[in-house]
């Protein structure tokens, strides 16, 4: 994808193929309210999948690089596989309305450490309406937690009702905050129909297992 030949210039949108015709990395977005466990889920996914897949992460923070720095400190991936996009205080703009900085971060990762199988794009905590553009990701995960109030699944919103996977995180805290897990699951089902929901606790033995399996199935379908 270099000099001169304009048949070979970088792609303008989220083409599913690389300039050389091979299938590009699957891109999965993770959104949801601040503190629900997006970064922790990304970290756990990296640990679960890094032996079997070539992985990279793009973070979109409100303030510069907090999430990227957490992932670096935790050493879930080598530093050259983690990239932070600055969002001008508006992560939802950078993941939905004006996605070029994210696309370029992904292109640069692919160029520097590729070929990649999977890119995880985390949106800094924003509001319940923030969703990813289809021009940026192939699938999106929405992460809420039991401590944020057990009526969030009932209230719905685009993230809760349309994300390809809904994670209800921190189930270990349910007894302490008085959240009714069965009701959360039933409300989520009512909002989402056949779309999957995972209840998880990253503090438990199983941790991110179900979500990692969901990602594996996505990868299998993508590369099939």
């Amino acid at each position, binding site marked *: *994808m*270099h*000099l*001169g*030949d*304009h048949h*070979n*210039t*970088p792609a*303008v*949108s989220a083409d599913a193929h690389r300039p050389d015709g091979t299938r590009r990395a699957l891109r999965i977005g993770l959104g949801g309210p601040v503190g629900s466990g997006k970064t922790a889920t990304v970290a756990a996914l990296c640990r679960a999948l890094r032996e079997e897949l070539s992985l990279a992460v793009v973070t979109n923070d*409100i*303030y*510069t690089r907090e999430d990227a720095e957490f992932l670096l400190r935790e050493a879930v991936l080598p530093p050259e596989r983690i990239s932070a*996009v*600055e*969002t*001008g*205080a*508006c992560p939802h*703009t*950078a993941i939905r*309305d*004006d*996605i*070029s*900085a994210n*696309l*370029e971060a992904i292109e640069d990762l692919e160029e520097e450490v590729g070929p990649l199988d999977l890119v995880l794009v985390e949106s800094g905590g924003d509001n319940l309406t923030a969703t990813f553009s289809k021009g940026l990701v192939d699938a999106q995960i929405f992460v809420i937690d039991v401590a944020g109030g057990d009526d969030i699944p009932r209230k719905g919103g685009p993230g809760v009702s349309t994300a390809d996977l809904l994670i209800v995180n921190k189930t270990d805290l349910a007894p302490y905050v008085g959240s009714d897990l069965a009701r959360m699951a039933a409300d989520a089902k009512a909002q989402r129909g056949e779309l999957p929901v995972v209840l998880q606790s990253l503090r438990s033995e199983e941790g991110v297992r179900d979500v990692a399996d969901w990602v594996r199935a996505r990868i299998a379908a993508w590369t099939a």
Partner: protein
Amino acid sequence: MSRAALLVLADGRFPAGGHAHSGGAEAAVRAGHITDAASLEEFCRGRLHTSGAVAASLAAAAALGVDPGELDLAADARTPSPALRVAARRLGRQLVRAARATWPHRELDALAGRFPKGAHQPVVMGLTARAAGLGPLDAAYCSAYEGVSGPATAVVRLLSLDPFDATGVLARLAPDLDRVARDAVEAGRAAVTEGVDVLPARSAPLLEIGAEAHAAWAVRLFAS
């Protein structure tokens, strides 16, 4: 010339990455130079007649068909701060992506191939105007206007400034914008016959110094 195409290109929601940049306003707010609408207006006026005039001239010259490679070098020479050069190229890369998707054009493809990491944004703006069927005056207007609307929008976020006051600032700058755009076209025409050295080389040292300091902050809302 299509007036509607000009509106598309000049729209603050045109997805070319500008939302994440403050045009130096974040550094100026921290330094205490911008505290209210009146000081925002002075900041914007200063920016418009210095780096704004340079950017508008580069855009006009590119729209007139001056070689983008030479203009890019001219832009480098007129941008002492490395942080500002990085920001200008990043925004140029984002604009060329949006422009190629919006107004497919051979010259934009060639530009993307020649500068895979981005040419200076005003140069890309000029070529984008060409691709959109617009003229040098349109390119100059877009560049000059963006140079003040970016800081005004950013200051609404940074200081919680009344958005009506910020828009009033932009309206009061209209006569200055008209003059800067007209002069930029004249400079662009001169560059067609006499080369890029005749383009204006005004600079605002505080913007350059502020940009260098800002790039080193650990926590910031805007990328520049």
